[in-house]
Structures are given as structure tokens and as C-alpha cells.
């Protein structure tokens, strides 16, 4: 499948409908069954895929609507991690989880999600997973001598899962590591475990690093300067960074460090309900192109659209696609 120049995609999550939130919470309150919830998830994911197609995205995701949040979906699948299932009242809360022994190698079970996505779209498909650095920050470590050691074992297990995903047809994989921004002092070992995670995975791999989007607000502030030069050692194809909300100052880092990666540039502010016009999006893309050539650019929102109302999320995607088309036209593509 050939992508156009300036391909458009989501970071991962799509708008979480209020009705789905309530049903998920009903499930935790044992008011609906797992079977019913699975069916509900299937319907919601199909709808999210359809919205992305209608908005005109070149690469689609499953909208991550099966996930309660970016952590729990993975920790409850990772073997060897103990979860206190009574620890959450609202579906979006985090479980209390802890690791008491060495994490064994076992399947995580993401392949089914990806197959469902492939079966429901003819567009290029991307699967997104939370990276080991971010996961280890939410798991109480009662076994490993260090966070790095825990993250390394998580990376090994997830590496096997990524290879299974590739076998199932995954060509675009995104690793989410927002906690890098919260713990910049970890960046050297964070990149090391990232490389263990992607070792031998034959797909186009992006790493998404933002400043957090929990409850639709940033968790940290600062500059991407902390990433450099450590991130240059990452064995990934592209970086996905947020620029719409924060402005494009950090784009200078790409020139300063001669960054070899492609860039997934955030051009949609996901923490603001006002919808950007295509012209604003186009201007943001042009600004990015001063630091990174169009051939190495992907066009994305700053982060997941999880917290935005569906109509706004959809309108933002439409504006993003239109903005990309404006610039493609200017480029004669």
C-alpha cells in the first residue's frame, strides 16, 4: 500500500464515547458481562475505524477503545504482574499492580486486536503499544533490583509480541513513551530498553513522546531537549512529538542534532476543544518542514483523541487531513 507524501494518522486513541465509559464502568461494577462488553467494544472499534476513514486518514488504528487507559490494558496481560481488581471505581482509574517475581515469557494477546483492525479496513493499519519505560512507572516493583531491570524484562516479553504482530501483518507499530518526559533523568536507560523492545521487529516503528494526556491535560511541562543526544541511539524509524499545543520551538532540535529519524509532527491540539482550521494545520506543517523535509514527515495530532467529544475529534481529524492536502498541493504532489 503506497502512502502519499505527508501521510496522516492518529497517535492511537479515538474519542471515548460517554456511553462506552458508562458501560465499561458497569462492567467493573459487575452489571454487564465480559461477553457483552466484548461485543460492545467490537461495535465501538468498527465505528472508530469508519470515522477515521471518513475523515480521510491514510493510516488508521483501532482507536484503542478496548483499553481502559494506556497502562492497565497491558499490565493485566503481562504475565507475572499481580493486579488488585478491586482497586478501581471508575474504569479510567489505574489498577494497583505489582510485580513479585521474574516476568515469564508469554503471549500478551494483542494480535487478536490487530487482526480485528485488519479485517475492518482496507487502509494501512497501525498498532500502538505502551512502552516498557512508561509501564514500569505504574507497576510497584517488589522483585527487580531496579526499574531498568523490570523495564528490560517487560521489553523482552513485548518484543516477542511485536514479532507476532508483524507475522500477523503489522507494518506500522508505534511505541508510546510519555513518561520519558516525566522522568528525563531515565532517558539513557529508557532508550536502551526501547532498543530491546524493537530488536529484530521488521516493521516501521515510531516512538511517541508527549507531555502526558491523562484526563486531557498535560502531566509535565518542559522542552524536548532532554531527549538529546540519547534518543539518537534509538533503533526506530520515527519520532512522534507534540508541537501544536506547545509551539514549534523544539523543532530547532532537529536541525541542531541532525536528527536522522522521520518525524510524526503533532499539528492538532488535543487538549483544546476548539477545532483548528485546515489553514492553521497547513501553516503548522509548513513550519515543521523548515526543520524536517516533507518526505520524512507524518502528520498527526499531538496525542490521542481519547478525551475529546466525538464530533470535535472527528472535525479535528478532518481539518488535519485537509491541511495536509493543502500542503501536498503546494508541493505539487
Amino acid at each position, binding site marked *: 500500500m503506497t502512502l502519499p507524501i505527508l501521510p496522516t494518522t492518529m497517535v492511537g486513541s479515538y474519542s471515548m464515547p460517554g456511553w462506552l465509559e458508562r458501560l465499561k464502568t458497569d462492567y467493573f461494577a459487575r452489571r454487564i458481562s465480559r461477553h457483552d462488553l466484548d461485543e460492545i467494544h467490537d461495535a465501538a472499534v468498527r465505528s472508530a475505524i469508519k470515522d477515521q476513514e471518513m475523515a480521510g486518514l491514510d493510516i488508521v488504528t483501532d482507536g484503542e477503545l478496548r483499553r481502559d487507559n494506556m497502562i492497565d490494558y497491558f499490565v493485566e496481560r503481562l504475565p507475572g504482574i499481580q493486579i488488585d481488581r478491586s482497586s478501581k471505581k471508575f474504569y479510567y482509574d489505574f489498577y494497583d499492580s505489582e510485580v513479585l517475581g521474574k516476568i515469564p515469557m508469554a503471549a500478551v494477546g494483542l494480535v487478536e486486536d490487530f487482526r480485528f483492525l485488519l479485517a475492518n479496513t482496507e487502509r494501512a493499519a497501525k498498532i500502538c503499544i505502551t512502552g516498557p519505560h512508561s509501564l514500569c512507572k505504574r507497576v510497584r516493583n517488589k522483585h527487580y533490583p531496579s526499574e531498568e531491570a523490570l523495564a528490560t524484562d517487560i521489553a523482552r516479553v513485548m518484543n516477542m509480541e511485536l514479532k507476532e504482530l508483524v507475522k500477523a501483518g503489522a507494518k506500522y507499530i508505534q511505541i508510546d513513551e510519555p513518561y520519558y518526559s516525566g522522568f528525563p533523568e531515565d532517558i539513557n536507560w529508557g532508550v536502551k530498553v526501547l532498543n530491546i523492545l524493537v530488536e529484530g521487529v521488521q516493521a516501521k516503528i515510531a516512538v511517541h513522546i508527549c507531555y502526558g494526556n491523562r484526563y486531557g*491535560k498535560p502531566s509535565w*511541562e518542559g522542552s524536548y531537549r532532554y531527549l538529546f543526544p540519547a534518543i539518537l541511539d534509538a533503533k526506530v524509524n520515527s519520532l512522534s512529538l507534540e508541537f501544536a499545543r506547545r509551539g514549534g520551538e523544539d523543532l530547532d532540535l532537529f536541525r541542531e542534532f541532525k536528527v536522522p529519524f522521520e518525524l510524526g509532527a503533532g499539528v492538532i491540539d488535543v487538549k483544546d476543544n476548539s477545532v483548528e482550521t485546515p489553514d492553521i494545520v497547513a501553516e503548522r506543517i509548513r513550519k515543521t518542514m523548515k526543520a524536517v523535509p516533507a518526505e520524512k514527515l507524518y502528520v498527526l495530532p499531538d496525542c490521542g483523541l481519547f478525551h475529546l467529544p466525538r464530533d470535535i475529534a472527528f472535525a479535528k481529524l478532518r481539518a488535519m487531513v485537509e491541511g495536509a492536502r493543502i500542503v501536498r498541493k503546494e508541493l505539487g504532489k
Partner: protein
Amino acid sequence: MGLSGDQDSPGSKLNLHLNHTHKDSAPATTSEVVATVLSLLEDGQMKPAQFARLQIHLDWLQYKHNFREAVTVMQGGEEQGEGAAPMEIRIDSRQVAPGSLRALLQNAMHPAKPDEDTGRIYFEGFRSFRTSIVWEFNRLYWQRLKDWEKATGKSYEQALPGGKSDGNQAQGVAEAAADFWTLLKDLESQNRLPQEVFILEIGVGLGKHAGLWLDRFCALDQGRGTNFYPRLRYLLGDYSLATLEHCRPAVKNHLDLCSFIALDAMDPIKTLSFLRHKVLHVHSTNMYDNLPDEEVVWRDSRIFWVQSRAYLPPGDAARISKACDVAVADIPTIVDRLLDVGIAALPDRAKGMIFWMEVWNAMRTEEKLVDAVDMPDASFPAGLSSAHMEDILRTAPNDLRFHLSPGALESFRNTLPLLHPRGYLQVQDIFATDLQDYSMGFHGPGKLDGSIVNWVNGALLREVAERAGYDLHFAPFKYRPGSKTSVLYTTRRE
């Protein structure tokens, strides 16, 4: 307090619920109320079906000055018999003259027919309390505070229960400044201290809190040699330009750091959108309790909206007419003018002032309950969906009347986006921190001088906060003995 007993009629279980009694509440003591109600039942002036679902709230009014008659009766909905909503009788014993309770109860139980002339001067039709004219009077008070203070001879702070605002309590301010310094120190240690440190105060009063806080922070910063003070950007926000002007002298030593910004307390982000996620501390004192409010009743798994209409009792209307040389029939028109131009509504400004005070002091509200199913367009405040409310009420006590606090919720929701990831909101106000609090007594609205005083539903704020990514905490205001104020503060929810 609850009383129950079997009545003679077969199958009729009578429940009489009295609450919030006050030991000094003569003459309407509990026993007198019970005896009076039983005698009305025996005399056939109250139907057994009414009695079977009767609720009496004795001494339910907390505020000496309020919007109620001595005895009011409210019946929810039109249904009769088993499905009938309980009749509520509310008695403010402070207003009940000795020996008058029976007559007052009889009167209240037989309200005038819709077309019957009661002599009351109505200012509006039944509506949500949040859109009532009483809030226009509240606005008038704050916009023309000087006129009121001149007429009463005391400042609005002197009218407060403690004689001054809790927001200006020196030790409380000092500790708040020290807490903020600690946050800045922590951010600095992580190399995350912003170049400009924004602080926002909403509802600035006379500026005393801002002045005290800045004095204290400056001293602390100099004493510890941290040099944070010059980085402060202290924003004083208020909807009244006159108030912003008045508060300047209180911060005269810090004018270089201060900005005076006219903003709507219910929508700070609209004015300050350029500071989204940048403000490290937002403070307000006694502001939420003065934002428009309305109430709902949760009863038998149904939600009722409380609708009200403001009026002047006939005796008060006649008295005001005489005192101010205006015809009774002209009072509503003059009230409109008063709300527009202040005391210049009358040619003689002194009489205009008397008119304002007298109308305000005499103003009452009638109430009725409307089943939510009959008001499909009525909506809960932003941040609270019907489904969300159902979740909240699932575990709430039955027969609960509580504030929705839409003004406070709106302000809260529209302030949170300003907060820096490490920022926090601190609000000193009177909060019902649990829905159960509403079973324990009345929480407003009342009148405090020329303004409205009303408790804020902290329990609903907590729910909205959780969904917005914050945990809310309430701590008693410990710096003034007997204070009913609590301090709300936010912490980030992980």
C-alpha cells in the same frame, strides 16, 4: 428526629419526620408542632394521605435573613394517594409569633388559587432559582457596594460573621504562601521552574488577601535567598472594574508584579486562554457561594427541579410604597430601573437607597417542585450528565434536597484548564462536603447584608473534579474558631 406510629385507619403507617431542631426555638417547639399537626389531622383539615407522607423541617432556616415565610408548604407533583410525593412543611420558628403556628399552618396548607389575588407583588414567573431576579440584586450589591456601605455605615467585611474575611487571616495567608514557596523550590530542584510564575486570584475584594500574600511571600523569599519573588506574576481577577481599582492600594508595594484583569468568575479560561496550563496557583475566597445556584430534590428515585418566583408580601409592599412615595403597582418597574441604574432609580437618591434596602430585605420566594420528566430541556451543569447524576444519587439518601451549584461548577471547570501540571486550586468557602450534609439541615440561600449567602455542593464538585483528573480535599478553616469555612484544594489524580 423521627416519630412514627400507627393511625386508626387500617394499613396506614404514619411517618412524621422532624429535623434540625434548635433548643432555643420557642415558641414552635417540637411538641407544639406535633400537637398542631395532629389536631389539624383530627379536625379533618389535613388528609390522612397527606399526613402519611408528611415531612416537617423545623428550624430549617439557618440564616436570620432569608427568602422564606415563617411557614411554607410544598407538595411535589400532582399525583395523589400512594404515588403522591410527600408534603413538606418548613417552619422557621424565629419568625413564628407565639400562638400563631396553627393559623400559619392552615394558611400555608391552603395556597391561593392561580387566579386569586393575594396582594403579593411578583417580580417573575416560576423559574429556576439560578435565573431569579434575586441574583440581579446580588449583582447590584457588588457593583454598587459603596452606596450600600455608605447607607449602612459599615463595610461588607464588617457584615461578615467574623467581622472580616477569612481570606485575610494572617496566619492562614502565611501558611499558604509558605506552601507555594515549597512548590517552587521543588520545581526548581527538578529544573522545572517556569521563568514566569503565574498566580491568579479570582474575586479580589479589597485586595487585602493579595497584599498580605505578596508581603509574606516576598519576606519568605528574601529570608531564604531564593529569588523567586521577581518571577511572580500575580493576576487579580474580578468582574467589577470598580473593585479592581479599589484593590490597588492594598498591593501598592507589589504593583510591578500585579495585573488587574476584568474576568467572568464563571469562565476564567475565556479571558486567560493564553495562560492555559501555565498558572501554578489559583485562589479565591467566598466567591463560589455567591454564584448563581439552583436546587433539586431526589425523592422516591425521581428527580424534581425546584422552581421559584420572587415576590414582595402585601404588607411590605404597602410599607415600601409609603416610605418611598411610589405606587404599589409601580414597584416592579422601579425595581427594573434600580437594577439598571442603582439608587438613581428614584429622583431622590436617599429614597432610592431606602427602596433598594427595603425591597431586598422584604423579598421572598415561592417554590414548587417539577418532576424532571416534565422538564426535558432542563439540564445538569456542564460536567454532570444525567447518567452521572444517577450514579451519584444511587447511593444518596432518599428525600434529599440539595444544591446543584451550577455557578460554582462552571467556574471550577473553567478554571482547571488554567492549571500548570503541578498547579493547584485553593478555595475558601462554605461547602457541604457530603450529600448527606443536606439531610442534616438547611444550607441556604440566605441574605447576608445586600448579597446572597449560600453553601456550595462540595460533593458534586468532587465528582466533577475526579472526572477532570483532580482529587478534591476539604480541610476546616482552622484559623478562626467557629468558622464554617472550609478550604478546598486540588491534587492531581494519577
